[in-house]
């Protein structure tokens, strides 16, 4: 039973992620709010379940010639180092505090996404006209 609930949670997260919305950020509230998974555990499973999915997508993208790694080491190296550092720090944070912070992060991302979508829409229209 537990397995089926988590399977459904993963499917819901994957469905929204596959539509290019939020990716893993939706899986975490599904697991914590709806399934009662502890905050740190939900974050961990999000990171781990991303790995096979990412490898699978990268193979397809590589075949379609959509990968362009120029300049990316400039992001990857500092990002990896800081993710380890902050990952270690966050292990000591109380689950309730981390959950509240995650809620704020989620609201900020939602606002950011709406502005992005509204800004992109007129640009697309303009492009359609000039074509």
């Amino acid at each position, binding site marked *: 039973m537990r397995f089926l609930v988590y399977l459904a949670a993963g499917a819901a*997260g994957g469905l929204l992620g596959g*539509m290019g919305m939020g990716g893993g950020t939706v899986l975490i509230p599904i697991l914590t709010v709806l399934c009662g998974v502890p905050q740190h555990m939900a974050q*961990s499973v999000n990171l781990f379940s991303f790995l096979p999915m990412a490898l699978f997508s990268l193979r397809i993208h590589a075949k379609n010639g959509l990968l362009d790694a*120029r300049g990316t080491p400039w992001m990857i190296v500092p990002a990896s180092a800081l993710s380890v550092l902050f990952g270690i720090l966050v292990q000591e944070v109380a689950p309730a505090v981390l959950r509240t912070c995650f*809620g704020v992060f989620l609201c900020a991302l939602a606002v950011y996404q*709406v502005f992005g979508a509204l800004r992109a829409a007129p640009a697309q229209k303009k492009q359609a006209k000039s074509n």
Partner: protein
Amino acid sequence: MKGKERAKLAAAGCAVGAVNGIFGGGGGMIVVPLLAGTAKKPPLVAHATAILVILPVCLASAAVYLAGGWFDAELFIAVSLGMLAGGAAGAKLLNAISPKAATVAFAAVMFAAGIRMIF
């Protein structure tokens, strides 16, 4: 690529790493607009390459969470299988809906979930 652009990417990389370490995800959403803007990659290439950027970052933070004792094999297997199936369905569904309406509706759900987590 000029020095200024490299510095911009490195600074953004720091933000991506911090977010990914603290929240266990969400870094990819910052990477896509940066690859499109600063690194001047076309949208599809920016989306695909963002996965390449975020994969080693997630691997690094996943190792930290594992060392911290946060790993549940049953949860991992169930969620991963669900995600693969849901992801394939979502990619197909993407062609059937209006992206703008979907994004706004989705953002509203995310906002509601965020509020629920704060209180």
